[in-house]
C-alpha cells in the first residue's frame, strides 16, 4: 500500500497540474444526479430525476498556476512593467498554465427501467467550453528583451501550446447494478463542435549567434501549426461589424451547436465496486472520443529552416552581375524557406480524456446498520443494496489529457449527512502549486427538490484576486428516490 501511495505522489509531483475540469467535489457525490456525468457507473439511488432546464448543472472554473491577478493589478504603487518582468517574464515557466472551463446543462433526465430495475438510463444535452494556454516562456522573453540582449540563447518554439473549444454534447447513458458488489455504466456522446483551436507538439527554435562571415547570424528552424475550426466564421461576423453582429453571432453559435458544426463521437465508462460493509472504489474514463473537423477550417503553419547574415556583396563575383534588389531577394528567400501558410485541411481532434479514481470508506454506521435505522430517506437501491451512510472519508485522483500531457489532482474528502436533508462534503486538494485548496459542497434535498452548490479553494476567496483558482458549481433537480 505504501508503494502505491508513493507512486501516486510521485506521479502527481511529476506532472503539471491543471485546475480546469477537475471536479473533485462532484465526483461520486451520488446524491446529486449530475455526478453520473463524471462516472456513468456510480451508484444511482434515484427512481428518476429531471434537471431544471438550463439550471440543472452549471459549473465554472478558472485557474492560473503562475501569477495571480493580485500579483499584477494590486494597487501597490509598483511599476507595472517591473511587475510583469519580475513576476511573469522572469518567473513563469513553460508548464505554467492559464485555463478555464465552463459547462451548462440544457437538459438532463434519468429514469429507472421498469422492466429491469437494475438499469438506470440517463440522457440530455449540455454545452461546454474550455481554454488552456500554456505560458510561452521563451517567446515572452524574446518579446520582452529581444534577441539583441540574448545573443546565443535559443528560443524554443515548442513553448507554444494552447487549446480551446466550445462544444455541444448530446448523450445517452446506461447504468447497471450487476450485484451487491458491482455497478457499471457507459455513456455514448455525440459532439457538435461550435469552434475549436489547438496548437501543440510544435518544434523548432530561433537563435542569434556570432556569424560565420558577418557579425550576427539569425537562424530559425520552425515547425509550428495552429489548427482552427469555426473560429474564422465568428471572426468574419465580428469583422463585418454591422447592426446585426450580435444577433448574427448568436445565430451562428446556435446553428453550429445543433449539429451544424463539426461532429464527433465519444464514450464514457465507469464502475463502482463495493468492498466490505463500508467501502467502495470507483473509476471512470470520460470523453474517450474524437471530433472530425471538416468545415469552417483555417489552419496556419510556419515550417522551414533559414539562416540570415544580411545582404552579401562579394567581389569579384558581384562586379558584373550586381543586383540592386538585394534586400527584396533576402526577404523573398526567407519567406520561401520559412513560409507562413494557411490551409483548409480536415483534421481530427481527440477529446481531452479524463480519468477519475476514488476510494471511499463510510463511517458512523455500516450499510446493514443503516438498513434498520428508520430514516426518512429511502436507502436501498433497486436490488436492495444500501446506498446510504452517515459520513464518509476517501480520496480521489483525477487526470486530464492536455497539450503538454496528462495533468492530475489528488483530493481527500470528508462527507457528512445532516438530518437526511443536507449533505456536506469538504475536500482538500493538493497539487504542485498549492497546499491550501479546500473545497466545500452543499446538497439540499427538500422533498423532491434537489439543490446543490459546490465551491473549490475557499481560502482563496478571502482575496479572490490573489487566488490561483476559483470554481463554482450549482444546480437544481427534481427527483424521486428509489423505493424501499
Amino acid at each position: 500500500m505504501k508503494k502505491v501511495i508513493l507512486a501516486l505522489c510521485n506521479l502527481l509531483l511529476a506532472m503539471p497540474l491543471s485546475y480546469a475540469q477537475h471536479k473533485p467535489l462532484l465526483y461520486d457525490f451520488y446524491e446529486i444526479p449530475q455526478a453520473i456525468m463524471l462516472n456513468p457507473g456510480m451508484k444511482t439511488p434515484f427512481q428518476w430525476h429531471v434537471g431544471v432546464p438550463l439550471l440543472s448543472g452549471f459549473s465554472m472554473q478558472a485557474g492560473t498556476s503562475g501569477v495571480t491577478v493580485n500579483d499584477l493589478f494590486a494597487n501597490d504603487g509598483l511599476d507595472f512593467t517591473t511587475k510583469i518582468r519580475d513576476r511573469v517574464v522572469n518567473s513563469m515557466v513553460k508548464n505554467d498554465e492559464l485555463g478555464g472551463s465552463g459547462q451548462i446543462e440544457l437538459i438532463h433526465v434519468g429514469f429507472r427501467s421498469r422492466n429491469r430495475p437494475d438499469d438506470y438510463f440517463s440522457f440530455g444535452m449540455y454545452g461546454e467550453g474550455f481554454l488552456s494556454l500554456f505560458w510561452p516562456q521563451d517567446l515572452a522573453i524574446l518579446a520582452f528583451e529581444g534577441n539583441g540582449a540574448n545573443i546565443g540563447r535559443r528560443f524554443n518554439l515548442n513553448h507554444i501550446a494552447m487549446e480551446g473549444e466550445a462544444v455541444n454534447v448530446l448523450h445517452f447513458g446506461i447504468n447497471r447494478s450487476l450485484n451487491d458488489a458491482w455497478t457499471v455504466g457507459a455513456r455514448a456522446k455525440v459532439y457538435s463542435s461550435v469552434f475549436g483551436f489547438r496548437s501543440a507538439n510544435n518544434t523548432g527554435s530561433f537563435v542569434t549567434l556570432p556569424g560565420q562571415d558577418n557579425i550576427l547570424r539569425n537562424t530559425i528552424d520552425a515547425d509550428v501549426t495552429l489548427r482552427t475550426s469555426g473560429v474564422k466564421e465568428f471572426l468574419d461576423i465580428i469583422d463585418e461589424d454591422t447592426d446585426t453582429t450580435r444577433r448574427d453571432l448568436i445565430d451562428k453559435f446556435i446553428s453550429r451547436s445543433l449539429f451544424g458544426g463539426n461532429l464527433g463521437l465519444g464514450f464514457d465508462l465507469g464502475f463502482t465496486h463495493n468492498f466490505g460493509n463500508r467501502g467502495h472504489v470507483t473509476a471512470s474514463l470520460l470523453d474517450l472520443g474524437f471530433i472530425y473537423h471538416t468545415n469552417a477550417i483555417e489552419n496556419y503553419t510556419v515550417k522551414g529552416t533559414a539562416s540570415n547574415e544580411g545582404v552579401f556583396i562579394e567581389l569579384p563575383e558581384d562586379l558584373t552581375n550586381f543586383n540592386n534588389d538585394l534586400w527584396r531577394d533576402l526577404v523573398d528567400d526567407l519567406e520561401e524557406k520559412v513560409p507562413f501558410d494557411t490551409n483548409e485541411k480536415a483534421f481530427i481532434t481527440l477529446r481531452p480524456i479524463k480519468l477519475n479514481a476514488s476510494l471511499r470508506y463510510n463511517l458512523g454506521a455500516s450499510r446493514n446498520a443503516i438498513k434498520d435505522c428508520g430514516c426518512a430517506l429511502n436507502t436501498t437501491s433497486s436490488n436492495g443494496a444500501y446506498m446510504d451512510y452517515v459520513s464518509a472519508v476517501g480520496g480521489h485522483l483525477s487526470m486530464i489529457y492536455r497539450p503538454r500531457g496528462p495533468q492530475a489532482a489528488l483530493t481527500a474528502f470528508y462527507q457528512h449527512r445532516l438530518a437526511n436533508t443536507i449533505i456536506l462534503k469538504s475536500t482538500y486538494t493538493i497539487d504542485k502549486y498549492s497546499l491550501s485548496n479546500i473545497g466545500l459542497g452543499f446538497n439540499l434535498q427538500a422533498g423532491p427538490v434537489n439543490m446543490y452548490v459546490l465551491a473549490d479553494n475557499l481560502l482563496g476567496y478571502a482575496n479572490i484576486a490573489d487566488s490561483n483558482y476559483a470554481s463554482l458549481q450549482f444546480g437544481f433537480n427534481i427527483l424521486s428516490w428509489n423505493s424501499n
Partner: protein
Amino acid sequence: MQRFLFLWICLFLTLSCSEEQDFDQADDLTLTPTVASSIFYFESDEPTINLADNNAFYQEDFTFEAFNEDFVAERVLDGVITYQLENTTSKTLSLIVQFLTATGAVLDTETFTVEAAPTALLERQVAYGDGGKPLDILVNTRVIRLTAENLGDATSVSSSPEPKIILRSSAAFGIQLR
C-alpha cells in the same frame, strides 16, 4: 458536528473578498525589446582592387528597406549600427557607406580608412536616436550606397594567403512594441 458547522460558517464568511485592484495600470506597460541583425557584408580580393582604373574600384547602390519596414519605422526608439573593417591586403583602403532616400538624397555618410596590412580590426559603433544621430536617417533610408577606394598602388600584392578587404555590419534597435 457543531465544530463542522462552525468551520463551514467561518469559511463561507471569508467568501468573495478582494483587495483593491487597479486594472488601468495595464496601460503603463512598456515593451521595448532590442532587435539585432546583421545588415550587409562586403568583401573584395586584392586582384579586384588592382583591376580598377581609378581610385574607386567599387561603387553600387542597393535597396535596403529594413529600417523603414512598418514594424521598425513606426516603433524604433534608438539604434546602434556596428561596423567591422578588416584589411589583409597591401593597400591603404577607404570605404564609404551612405544612406540615401528613394530619390537619391544622401542622409548620412560613414567613411572608413584602413591602413595596409598588418593592421588591427577596425570597429566603429554609430548611435542613432537618444544622444546619437537623428532617427529620421534610419527611418527614411531606402538605399545604401557603398563606395570602396584604393588609396595605394595598383600593382602590389600581399604575401598573406587570400588577402581581402572585408566590411561587416550589424544593427541593434530598441523597438517600442507597446
